[in-house]
């Protein structure tokens, strides 16, 4: 099948403010000692990087999400992968949420469902741009089940649900399961969010 190239601005992803999107996947193929080729489903990940504010330049929305200091946010959601031999499909079953952390200020649209349970000083220092480069002392907070109400995809880690995006590009019926999330805010410039989804494509 030939490849098809186009400009990134024409990439239809059904969401606003996407900076990059990529997909990695491979089918589970095995060879038995008797020489039988076994074909399993394809597992993959989709990574999205986006602006957490409207891409419209005239928008007055705060691009730093209410923070003054450099801030990073991270969260993970754990899924259990199980095979159902009755209908020959893999399913992703959510565990009870996942750990989350905020380093720096607490952004407007980020909160913990549980916690924070611990708060301690952290730092970030680099002299790679010269010894006069500033370094930062910040606070690190650890909690559980991040709640993100911002753009482009809001979620509650404690109530994970499959997400239907890229329906025009992925085989029909594929659902995406958010497994990790990060938000980075770099005052006075900008901010961006990253999502990592996992999915399975069951053999027809």
């Amino acid at each position, binding site marked *: 099948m030939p490849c098809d190239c186009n400009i990134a601005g024409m990439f239809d992803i059904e969401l606003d403010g996407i900076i990059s999107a990529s997909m990695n996947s491979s089918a589970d193929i095995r060879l038995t000692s008797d020489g*039988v080729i076994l*074909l399993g489903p394809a597992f993959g990940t989709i990574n999205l990087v986006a602006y957490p504010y409207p891409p419209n330049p005239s928008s007055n929305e705060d691009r730093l999400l209410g923070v003054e200091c450099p801030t990073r946010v991270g969260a993970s959601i754990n899924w259990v992968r199980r095979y159902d031999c009755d209908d020959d499909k893999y399913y992703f079953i959510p565990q009870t949420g996942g750990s989350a952390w905020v380093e720096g200020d607490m952004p407007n649209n980020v909160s913990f469902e549980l916690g924070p349970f611990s708060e301690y000083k952290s730092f970030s220092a680099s002299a790679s741009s010269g010894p006069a480069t500033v370094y930062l002392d910040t606070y690190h907070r650890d909690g559980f089940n991040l709640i993100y109400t911002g753009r482009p995809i809001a979620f509650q880690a404690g109530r994970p649900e499959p997400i239907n995006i890229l329906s025009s590009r992925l085989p029909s019926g594929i659902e995406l399961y958010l497994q990790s999330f990060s938000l980075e805010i770099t005052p006075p410039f900008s901010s961006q969010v990253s999502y990592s989804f996992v999915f399975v494509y069951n053999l027809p």
Partner: protein
Amino acid sequence: MIIQHRYRMRAGNPMPAINDLFFYQTFMAEKVRVDIYEAKRDVDLLVTDNFRGRGGEFISANYTRLPYKDTSGNIMFSGNEEHIPEYIDEDDVPGA
């Protein structure tokens, strides 16, 4: 397929004798051939007529559905199949 053999001594309980000695009386041994399948097609699984009660040569089999298909689309199973025991002399059991 991997062929494995399982052995079982046919014996009674050890009986006490004199001076802390015990007698252990054996009555030959069973040698069971076990066929182990990493992947076997659903259409090739054993059926009732393959088992001893119906004149077949197997005494038991168990299978687990695999999340794979072969290139022809057949559903695949892993599992093992046990043949009817063969009676052998105790001295022919490995390690005896």
